[in-house]
């Protein structure tokens, strides 16, 4: 049923009042909403069952003023599955399906909080409300504004929070030139990694003359350990669709494609629903708002090739071919999809567009640093307490993200390095932990912004092994088109394997460096040009670790199994047997209070015993 702007405004007004309790703790209402995260992380730990249980129990008790809403990611994945009760904003962590009855009975019926499910902050204080958590205090949510607030499968809820207002504003008040000018002034740069100014990209495509142009949303988030784009698509799909329409109006395109990984079934499903709802309301399709502008969006599925995140490889893939990059120039802005001018923007970049149009370029450019404006979403993972999704103003330091927001390193271990930019990025050591995060600063210290994966590593991680891990990744993901990347990365991996297996020579380190520089200079696309970064940055900051592997044939962290033997120090062992109970392969011998020994034949060097020993008696 096509809606006029008047009808849309009516939906907005009515829904906004109804949903005031979602964002206003003092909302005057008799209703309550139980928001349950339905992102990929919480879904894996049974959040759909939690939603069903809540609904069932509410029904059994004839409670009609409480609604259960499935939302996108709240960000704090480490505490999932999460349920939040609004308007009072009570935050329940690690909820299990069997807890639903108690929550309904105690919280909803009796009006008390279920204390055992309240979230504990890192310092041990019990937190009742979401915004009291340290995790949220330093964040600023622009791209994630609606994630965890609205039901992503309900277009009315998106409309309630200023949805489809920007596209109307653009179509009625702005010329394409003005839109591009506004985006340029905001200072928005591509969030996919390279940081190309978005306004400039649009203006290149706008200047091209062609009967057909395309807008593509790059949702092929292949960086292992990154899930920003997935969470935006799962939590707020309409914001991306609306932004694509705005981009389409600006450059003169009438067709958009979202290229999304098939490995993201929930995101794909939400997008399908969102596109259908938008079409039904006439917000996609012919003659939007009756203003003579046509724009439609279709989904194209990827099939698990990291290189397809590279824009020209992505174009090949949409055309149904092997995803091998094209030689540039010509750039996609002049010859892109099916040879037509094309703009390719990343999901997070697009998620910023509607907010910039509504709040103005000045507002946006007031956030961030001199050269990097706005905010950046990071998928914080690895050895950090608050694993999850965080959005911070550009210029926030790594220390603030890891310690203030991330709550530090588990088990009081020391910070060793943070990895940004995934397989294209580098490791940032402790000495640079106070570097402000923006495009230039990260590049200066040998890493890159990347799409937003931020993996924290503690002192037990071997940096040679990490470099090997990334090289292994690029070798299997190299498309094979150009020689430096196809063969060069393979040779680098062989050298790293040699070092990790205890057969390395000092010369190998120099060979690695030389190869790395050649691959950087001679590869066709971004994948090859950046593939050596993990090796170069670890060589820069952790060269001694490489030398120890090569010269002393020792891996201090017991990661490289060929050159580490795990032994129990008989002087420190108290015979408690804790290691024995934890050992998954029964490799530890000894009875009662006897001093334990490890059978090297059986030992798989998993390191479980090292973690388990309270007396630090196990090592090499």
């Amino acid at each position, binding site marked *: 049923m096509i809606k006029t702007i008047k009808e849309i405004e009516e939906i907005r007004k009515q829904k906004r009042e109804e949903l005031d309790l979602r964002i206003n703790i003092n909302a005057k209402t008799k209703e309550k909403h139980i928001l349950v995260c339905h992102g*990929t*992380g919480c879904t*894996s*730990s049974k959040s759909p069952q939690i939603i069903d249980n809540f609904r069932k129990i509410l029904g059994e008790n004839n409670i009609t003023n409480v609604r259960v809403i499935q939302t996108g990611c709240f960000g704090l*994945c*480490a505490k*999932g599955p999460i349920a939040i009760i609004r308007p009072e904003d009570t935050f329940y962590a690690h909820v299990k399906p069997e807890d639903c009855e108690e929550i309904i009975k105690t919280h909803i019926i009796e009006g008390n909080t279920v204390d055992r499910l309240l979230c504990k902050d890192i310092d041990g204080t019990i937190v009742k409300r979401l915004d009291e958590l340290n995790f949220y205090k330093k964040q600023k949510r622009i791209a994630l504004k609606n994630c965890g607030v609205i039901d992503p499968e309900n277009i009315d809820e998106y409309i309630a929070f200023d949805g489809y207002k920007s596209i109307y504003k653009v179509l009625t008040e702005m010329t394409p030139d003005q839109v591009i000018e506004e985006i340029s002034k905001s200072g928005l740069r591509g969030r996919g990694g390279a940081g190309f100014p978005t306004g400039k990209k649009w203006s290149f495509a706008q200047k091209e003359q062609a009967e057909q142009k395309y807008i593509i949303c790059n949702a092929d988030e*292949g*960086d*292992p*350990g*990154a*899930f920003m784009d*997935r969470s935006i698509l799962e939590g707020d799909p309409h914001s991306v669709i609306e932004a694509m329409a705005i981009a389409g109006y600006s450059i003169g395109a009438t067709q958009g494609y979202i290229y999304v990984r*098939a*490995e*993201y079934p929930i995101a794909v499903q939400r997008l399908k629903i969102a596109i259908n709802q938008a079409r039904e309301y006439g917000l996609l399709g012919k003659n939007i708002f009756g203003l003579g502008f046509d724009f439609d969006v279709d989904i*194209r*599925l*990827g*099939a*698990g*090739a*990291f290189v397809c995140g590279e824009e020209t490889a992505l174009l090949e*893939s*949409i*055309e*149904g*071919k*092997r*995803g091998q990059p094209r030689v540039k120039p010509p750039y996609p802005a002049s010859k892109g999809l099916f040879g037509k001018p094309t703009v390719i923007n990343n999901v997070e970049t697009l998620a910023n567009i509607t907010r910039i149009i509504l709040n103005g370029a000045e507002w946006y450019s007031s956030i961030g640093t001199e050269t990097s404006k706005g905010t950046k979403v990071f*998928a914080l*993972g*690895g*050895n950090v307490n608050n*694993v*999850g999704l965080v959005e911070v103003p550009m210029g926030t330091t790594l220390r603030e993200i890891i310690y203030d927001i991330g709550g530090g390193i588990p088990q009081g271990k020391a910070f060793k390095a943070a*990895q940004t930019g*995934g397989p294209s990025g580098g490791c940032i050591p402790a000495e640079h932990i106070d570097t402000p995060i923006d495009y230039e600063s990260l590049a200066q210290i040998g890493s890159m912004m990347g799409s937003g*994966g931020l*993996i924290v*590593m503690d002192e037990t*991680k071997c940096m040679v092994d*990490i470099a090997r*891990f990334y090289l292994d*990744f690029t070798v*299997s993901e190299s*498309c094979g088109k150009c020689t430096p990347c196809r063969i060069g990365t393979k040779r680098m991996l062989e050298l790293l394997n040699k070092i990790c297996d205890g057969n390395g020579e000092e010369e190998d380190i120099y060979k690695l460096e030389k190869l790395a520089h050649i691959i950087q200079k001679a590869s066709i696309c971004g994948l090859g040009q950046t593939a050596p970064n993990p090796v170069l940055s670890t060589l820069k900051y952790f060269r001694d670790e490489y030398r120890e592997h090569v010269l002393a044939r020792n891996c201090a962290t017991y990661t490289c199994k060929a050159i580490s033997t795990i032994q129990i120090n008989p002087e420190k062992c108290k015979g408690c047997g804790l290691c024995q109970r934890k050992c*998954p*392969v029964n490799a530890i011998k000894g009875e009662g209070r006897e001093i334990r020994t490890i059978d090297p034949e059986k030992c*798989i060097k*998993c*390191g*479980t015993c090292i973690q388990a020993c309270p007396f630090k008696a196990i090592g090499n």
Partner: protein
Amino acid sequence: MEVNCVNEKIKKDMAEILEKYTDQKDNLIAILNEVQEKYGYIPQKAQLEISEKLKIPMAEIYGVITFYSRFTTEPKGKYNISICLGTACFVKGSGNLLDRAKERLKINSGEVTPDGKFSIDEVRCVGACGLAPVFMINNEVYGNATVKMLDEAIDKYMNL
């Protein structure tokens, strides 16, 4: 005789799938995704049907299938163990899980046990980084996984 039966069945299935698409060449990946989903792999007969519909040579289709890691030309085991090797899982020790799975089942990743019961897959990020390290057996996710959990899970399915 049996092969003919299977081929007839695939032909019928494929007709249903292909009916939904035009014969434009850019539909190839979408069709392959659907076939992969249906059978767990892409049978040769299905490739032939696609080739005829889209007028793309078999060799080119084979090229596309082998390029993308989601597509396989061999069926997977009844219980497919996917071990996440995304960075978040890797730094939390999923490498140990992979080693253990290979050791227990005596196959490499990408292979199937001779009885067809198990297969091992390395996957890059299933998106459950909050639960790292993660492995999956078919669609069931095991979060905060340990070698012991993996052992127990394998034992369970071994006896089924």
